[in-house]
Structure formats: C-alpha cells, structure tokens
C-alpha cells in the first residue's frame, strides 16, 4: 500500500497564475481533506470531499476550489495566486467522514509563489 500520494512535490508559480495539485488517497479510503500549512504553523483546513462533493469548507476564499473523482482521487485548484498562498499543501484521506476516523496525510506539495 503506497499510502497517500501527492503530486507534484514542488511547484513554483508567479502571482496571478493558477495551479492544480493532485492527491491519491490510501487504498480503501473514500474521503479526502486538504490543508494548507504555512511555514512554522499548523495545518489549516481548506475543505473535505466525500462522494465527489465538497462536504465541509474552512475559511478560505473561492479562489480555492477542488474536485473528487469517482476513484476517490482529488484535485485542489487555486486561482489568481497571491504571495501569501506560498505554503505546503497537504492532502489527507480517511474511510468515511465521521469524527475520530483517522486521517492519513501525504507528504505534501510545496508551492512557492513569486
């Protein structure tokens, strides 16, 4: 089992551009959550996908959007990039979306906005 995988590992973009990050959940998992982790900070919840729908959303603007595919993989899209979007973006998967279901995190995608 490869666990949660994310691509790409690193990405450099310029302000105003758009970016797409990808996540493949752990085998058997159907729920994917995305987090933004700024340097030296804890992860901040962006949103969660279950059954191909956004179920919960954190305090992030509409520039952040996502998608879940029938195979449970997911994408995070960020439009009109700002310097402040530079961070490590983490994907986590779980089986179901009840409280207490262990979330398994991928290694993250390091996004740098210049």
């Amino acid at each position, binding site marked *: 089992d490869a666990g949660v995988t994310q691509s790409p590992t690193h990405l450099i973009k310029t302000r105003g551009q758009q970016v797409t990050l990808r996540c493949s959940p752990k085998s058997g998992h159907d729920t994917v959550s995305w987090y933004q982790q700024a340097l030296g900070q804890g992860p901040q*919840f962006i949103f969660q996908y279950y059954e191909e729908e956004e179920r919960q959303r*954190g305090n992030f603007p509409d520039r952040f959007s996502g998608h879940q595919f029938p195979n449970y993989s997911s994408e995070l899209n960020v439009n009109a990039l700002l310097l402040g979007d530079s961070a490590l973006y983490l994907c986590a998967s779980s089986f179901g*979306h009840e409280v207490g279901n*262990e979330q398994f995190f991928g290694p993250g995608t390091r996004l740098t906005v210049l």
Partner: protein
Amino acid sequence: QQQVKQSPQSLIVQKGGISIINCAYENTAFDYFPWYQQFPGKGPALLIAIRPDVSEKKEGRFTISFNKSAKQFSLHIMDSQPGDSATYFCAAESSNDYKLSFGAGTTVTVRA
C-alpha cells in the same frame, strides 16, 4: 482565529527525560482530540488521540491528559529518545462540522 492554542513553541529535553506539551481550546463542541507527529519533509502522522469522556490515555511512552472543565489537554512523552525529535501538533474536531483544527505546533529536540 486559531481555535486550539499550543505551547511551548519549542522545547529541548535530554535523552530519558520527559517532554510536556500543552493545548487549550474554547469550543465546547470539540469531541475528539488527536496528537500528530511530523518529521521534516513528511506529512503529519497520528500519534495518539482521546475523547472527552476519559481523563487520560496511554500508549507506550506517550500519554494524553485531558481536563474537560479547564478545556485543556496535554501530551507527555516519557523516556524521550533522539528519534522523538519532531514537531508535534495537537488538534481538535467536532461532530458538528468534522473540521480538524490544529495548534501551531511544538518542535521537540531530544539531546543524546
């Protein structure tokens, strides 16, 4: 607004010593309190978790103490080892919205 406040920001402990990390929360709807361990270049990994109906949970050298009335919980790492050097995050989640809220993290360094 950070819903879970974590302290200290960093700590150094000698091998064999005890590391203690504290967290506090305000949202009484939180009903699941996990701790995550993160190594450089890796994503966080679940270490141990507790529900508010128990005051303590122990797994190996790691213990969570939970004080519901004070809205505080802490992680104790006993017999700290160099391999425990990592960043530790407390977190909290509510059955109302299933959003996991993390503390700012504590970097633990264990000196051999």
